């Protein structure tokens, strides 16, 4: 790096407890200026509490919050150079759209309020609705007004608390692109809290996956996806097949691991643990199905045989469930390059994937942690 810039946000050993419940546990976090940062995690993981501590709506039990290099831990919300897009939008129902957007500017006695409001509303393409009241807006419009109301103040940090949660899927996709465009256009630092992994990966330069008050892993979305460090990240960010195994040796840059009856090879630089019991992981779309008589390509790991127990056609791909003895169920996504399903229910298949897509995790954890659970809260 040619020069050291001041990070937009620095959290140092921030802890927040509510009674005996530890919501945020000794968190350290640095967010560089100008980035689009996503804080991703299931509900109750502490991400919203973290956001609220940054905004000044919640006081940390201990630790330091620095914004733009300045310690703001003791400052209350209205003294922090931070603005929030609230989950419920929290538009003031008694004020017009224009007055809502002007609210922050007026509190800080800025000049050219009208021009700035117009500019902000134009940015979110709602310049024509300034005189309306919030009750007269659709969900997507309200969301954009909330964004304009925050952006117009040019904060050092813009916080977004599940801002797209209330929108329907199609609108959400559209707003994801829109948010990304606006962030690039205004160049502000965005901190985006969400439980939607797809949303986080689509928009953010850097994603931090949070679980139980701690950050499990942080990095660019591609890296998090291809090299997860914990079972939680592997399962929460997309889907993973995780099988327990034992490291039995080493072959150059590859670890030899016995899984079920088979031996698979894991690149050493993609393994968190290199000895003892491990979890061997592979993403479902990396796996190919081998029917009787088909042989794997070289440098491929192979497990099985197993029985196809479910086939579902989803348009672009077909999803299979394969039950492998001693190892459990594997999910396999196969692109429908040539049409629909290539294997039928009940077929005996083997599973094969390239060694380079294999990752190894510490075997001392629950392989299902972070996986979708019907009984869990969304």
């Amino acid at each position: 790096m040619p020069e050291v810039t001041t990070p937009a946000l620095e959290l140092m050993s921030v802890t927040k407890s509510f009674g005996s419940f530890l919501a945020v546990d000794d968190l350290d976090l640095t967010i560089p200026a100008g980035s689009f940062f996503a804080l991703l995690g299931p509900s109750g993981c502490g991400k919203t509490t973290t956001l609220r501590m940054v905004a000044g709506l919640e006081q940390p039990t201990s630790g330091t919050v620095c914004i733009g290099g300045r310690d703001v831990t003791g400052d209350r919300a209205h003294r922090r150079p931070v603005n929030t897009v609230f989950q419920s939008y929290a538009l003031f129902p008694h004020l017009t759209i224009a007055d809502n957007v002007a609210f922050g500017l007026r509190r800080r006695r800025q000049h050219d309020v009208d021009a700035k409001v117009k500019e902000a509303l134009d940015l979110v393409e709602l310049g024509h609705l300034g005189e309306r009241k919030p009750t007269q807006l659709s969900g997507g419009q309200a969301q954009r007004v909330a964004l304009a109301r925050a952006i117009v103040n040019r904060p050092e940090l813009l916080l977004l608390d599940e801002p797209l949660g209330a929108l329907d899927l199609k609108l959400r996709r559209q707003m994801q692109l829109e948010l990304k465009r606006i962030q690039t256009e205004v160049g502000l630092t965005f901190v985006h809290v969400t439980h939607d992994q797809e949303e986080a990966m689509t928009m953010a330069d850097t994603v931090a996956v949070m679980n139980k008050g701690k950050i499990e892993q942080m990095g660019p979305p591609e890296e998090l996806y291809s090299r997860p460090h914990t079972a939680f990240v592997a399962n929460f960010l997309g889907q993973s097949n995780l099988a327990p195994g034992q490291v039995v040796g080493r072959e150059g840059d590859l670890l030899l691991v016995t899984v079920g009856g088979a031996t698979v090879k894991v690149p050493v630089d993609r393994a968190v643990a290199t000895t003892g019991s491990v979890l061997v992981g592979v993403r479902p779309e990396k796996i190919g199905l081998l029917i009787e008589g088909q042989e794997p390509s070289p440098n491929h790991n192979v497990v099985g045989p197993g029985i196809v127990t479910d086939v579902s056609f989803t348009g672009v791909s077909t999803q299979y469930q394969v039950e492998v003895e001693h190892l459990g169920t594997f999910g396999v996504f196969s692109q429908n390059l040539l049409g629909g399903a290539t294997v039928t229910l009940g077929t005996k298949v083997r599973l094969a994937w390239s060694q380079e897509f294999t990752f190894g995790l510490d075997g001392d954890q629950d392989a299902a942690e972070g996986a979708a659970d019907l009984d869990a809260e969304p």
Partner: protein
Amino acid sequence: MSATTGPVVRGTVPTARRRSWHLGDALIPVLAALAFIYLLVPIVYTVAFSFNDAGKSNLVWRGFTWKNWQNPCGAPQVCEAFRNSLSVGVVATLIATVIGTLLALALARFAFRGRPAVNLLVFLPMSTPEVVLGAALLAQFLSLRVQLGFWTVVAAHVMFCISFVVVTVKARVAGLDPALEEAAADLYASPFQAFWRVTFPLLLPGIAAAALLSFSLSFDDFIITNFNSGSFTTFPKFVYVSATRGIPPQANVIGSFMFVAALAIVLVAQLVSHARGKRRAG
């Protein structure tokens, strides 16, 4: 509705269901209409007898006249009592609304030790019969040798109005999204500015409703007033006291006037908000 779109099975069950719908459809509005008539009969009577060409007592119909309406203060004391009621109502409402709104904010916005006790303290005056409240205050005023009059009545009215204000405003505060105040703070509003620019305007309809309620309770109160007023006379007390010798028709004029005025004010407010709602929808 299920009766028309519902079961595939044709036969007795759906038919019976449909019939009972119609019965209920007609029966409930009829019952309600009778109840409204019950509610309005004495008011119609009161209004009618405000036009009675009454002699000494206003008990028997003696013919139509405008003269009671032309000279509503014609009977001794009636207008003074009315003025007294209005001033007690206004002063008590102002005080009770301010105190009650502050209490409601504290109860709805803060979690503090002793909150249940404060809730109970607010609830108790509402669940104490007026005769007890009146007697208790009188016992106190007597033992402190306080001169009974305008201010003792105001003090008593404020006391029982506070609880109703708290309940009304608290419901409004509870219905307010707490994120709105946070948004104000997030947008650089100090706590005072956040209250003044966001919370207060949003609470205003609730506060206005509480004030209206206070005023109507105060204006209509008789029992507590009777205990704590000494020789000071309010309108209800005037009517009660003169009931034995016959109520002058001017009292009916004032009662009718208040009814019509209340009706008009609320209806105009309704029409305005209705029109505004229409414009907004359009």
